[in-house]
């Protein structure tokens, strides 16, 4: 079982203000498996570059009611959180696109519930182009949605796993672990990991979920790469 700490990156530009691997400066889509909304949000936060730039966090009403709102105390590092709660999913996309026009933001996170008709290929393409033009990462968190046609450069599926053993208390849950499935990507091979989020160091430890190592061994020939 190989052990890596960052995702493979095919030469794409990423921010690294604090010497840390940042998230790709484009649109990524994260599908939260049932009741794993917090896990998906935690994964997205672990992927963001550290910095003082504010995060614009947009939720539609349904995802706010069903999975709760982001809690500042749970975010940990003293980031500035700009929250928006919007009723209609189409307006969430409009607000996210407005946010991506500004270079002052550290990231734009939009949460959508289900499969709104407004979230079609055109809408995601607009978001992706806008994010790449300004260099602000955009993350789309989808709760109970289906992976339909999308222009997102990376598409992930996150599910919660039982947590790592707690060194201080055997009965207590330890560091969270997720099953991270990169099932579509523009420039990375699709892969399945078990990620353990080290909260103290804010680091993501990855290990391949497939034990025989065929997928983890390498990127494979170019022709087999998935196109998102």
């Amino acid at each position, binding site marked *: 079982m190989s052990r890596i700490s960052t995702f493979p990156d095919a030469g794409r530009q990423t921010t690294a203000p604090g010497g840390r691997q940042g998230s790709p400066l484009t649109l990524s889509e994260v599908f939260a498996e049932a009741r794993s909304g*917090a896990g998906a949000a935690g994964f997205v*936060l672990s992927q963001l570059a550290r910095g003082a730039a504010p995060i614009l966090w947009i939720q539609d009403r349904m995802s706010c*009611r069903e999975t*709760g*709102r982001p809690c500042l105390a749970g975010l940990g590092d003293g980031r500035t959180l700009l929250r928006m*709660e919007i009723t209609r999913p189409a307006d969430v996309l409009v607000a996210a696109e407005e946010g991506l*026009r*500004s270079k002052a933001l550290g990231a734009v996170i939009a949460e959508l519930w289900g499969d709104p008709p407004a979230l079609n290929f055109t809408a995601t393409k607009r978001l992706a182009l806008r994010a790449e033009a300004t260099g602000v990462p955009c993350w789309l968190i989808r709760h109970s949605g289906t992976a339909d046609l999308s222009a997102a450069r990376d598409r992930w599926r996150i599910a919660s796993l039982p947590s790592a053993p707690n060194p201080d208390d055997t*009965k207590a849950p330890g560091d*969270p672990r997720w099953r991270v499935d990169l099932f579509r990507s523009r420039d990375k091979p699709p892969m399945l990991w078990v990620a353990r989020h080290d909260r103290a160091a804010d680091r993501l430890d990855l290990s391949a979920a497939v034990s025989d190592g065929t997928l983890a061994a390498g990127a494979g020939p170019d022709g087999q790469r998935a196109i998102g």
Partner: protein
Amino acid sequence: MERWQREQDRTGNAPSADLPQVLVVEGAHGPVVHAANRAACLAGVATGARVVDMRAICPSLRVDYADPQGDLAALERLALWARRWCPWTAADGQGLILDTTGSDHLWGGEPAMLAEMEGRLSLLGLSSRLALAPTWGAAWALARFGPVRAIWRGAADLAPLPVAGLRLGDETALLLHRLGLKTVGDLAAVPRLALARRFARAQLAENPLLRLDQMTGHLAEPLAPPDAPAVFCAEARLAEPIFDPTHHLPGLCDDLCARLAVAGHGARRLRLTVYRTDGEVASIEVAMAAPSREAAHLVFLFRDRLERIDPGFGFDLIALEATVTEPLAVVQANLAGGRDEALELSRLVDRLTVRFGVGAMSRAVPRASHIPERAEGRMPPLATPAPLPPPSLAERPLRLLDHPEEVRVLYAVPEGPPAQFVWRRQTHRAVRYAGPERIAPEWWQDRPGTRLRDYFKVEDDTGHRYWLFREGLHDDGRGGDPRWFLHGMFT
């Protein structure tokens, strides 16, 4: 009267203008005439007379009730519309007052301005009597008792006017009449001391001496418009009425921004007003998070809202005013000439606020409280938060439900951790737990009888981590058995 005529025209049952018609209000002894049309005036109907007397004079008189409140409201709207001529306008209940100081040359002199006003008002179907004088009182008297389109030439103009032109009450005017003081000139000839002694206790509205001083300018009488006109304003006058201001907006914004730049100011609040051809004004406002004089940004803020303006039957004057401005110096954020992040953020806040409303975007700030829902507050996006309280050492979930949801829990009575719970009709079996973390109620703001909370971080058999709390203890005497709630989710 003319407003009534237009109303009737609109509803399609207007009587012929040849029939005598009066509008009445209720008086002390039955209805009295409030206004009469031209035919009624020719028949001898006098304003203020009782309707029964007038019926005796003119048996074919048609009577309808007047609407003084509606007249007043219409006059106030007309006062706003009259800002097309000069910025300071007000309605005084019987007419309009315009302070045209410094704006008559824009209309080609005083006589041309009065002619233009009368023409515009007659296009609305309103007849008007206009007068121009250095003081409010003199203009009031000249308009009512002077010649047509009177323009002040000197104090001698006022002398032949009747004392009713002093804006006095009926009783005082009658008293002066009985005293033989029939004109303003007569009154001015009386020694001041005698007048002052006679009317020592009279209020302003009944005091001829004070009114005379106001008319001659010895006593100041400033104009009080409903809201102060803006300092920075750009206007576009159109030859023909139009319905859509979109094409004129960039030019207006450029114009306004140039004026703001000269004065070194930036706009915080903008108002776009259109002056409709039917004598009304309609306006929309936008606000900005930070002062700005960037024309493209201002145009953008109005972009989606222009459709909310009500054009009526078209408008021929568009005014863009900066109602609130702040000094805005030309600054260079950094020597390298890079972009200014604070500015970009304020621009973003403007765009989102214009689109989604003022309360849609908020900034989460920590507050000094241990109760989770009180530990976080909301502030406007660009507000500077107070110094942060020291963060709690205890672990908090990433997501918090707005209202804790009640769950049914199996647990070891009295204070054991949850072993199994039902949340949203699904059964979760707790595998591991951490806690409890006891949070006592804040007695200085909670109601009496609020129960303490014991929080548990629970991991279920599918690997999800929840934040549950038990409200109260079994024997705390604050209600029955404690209830359990699910409050948040950990990553």
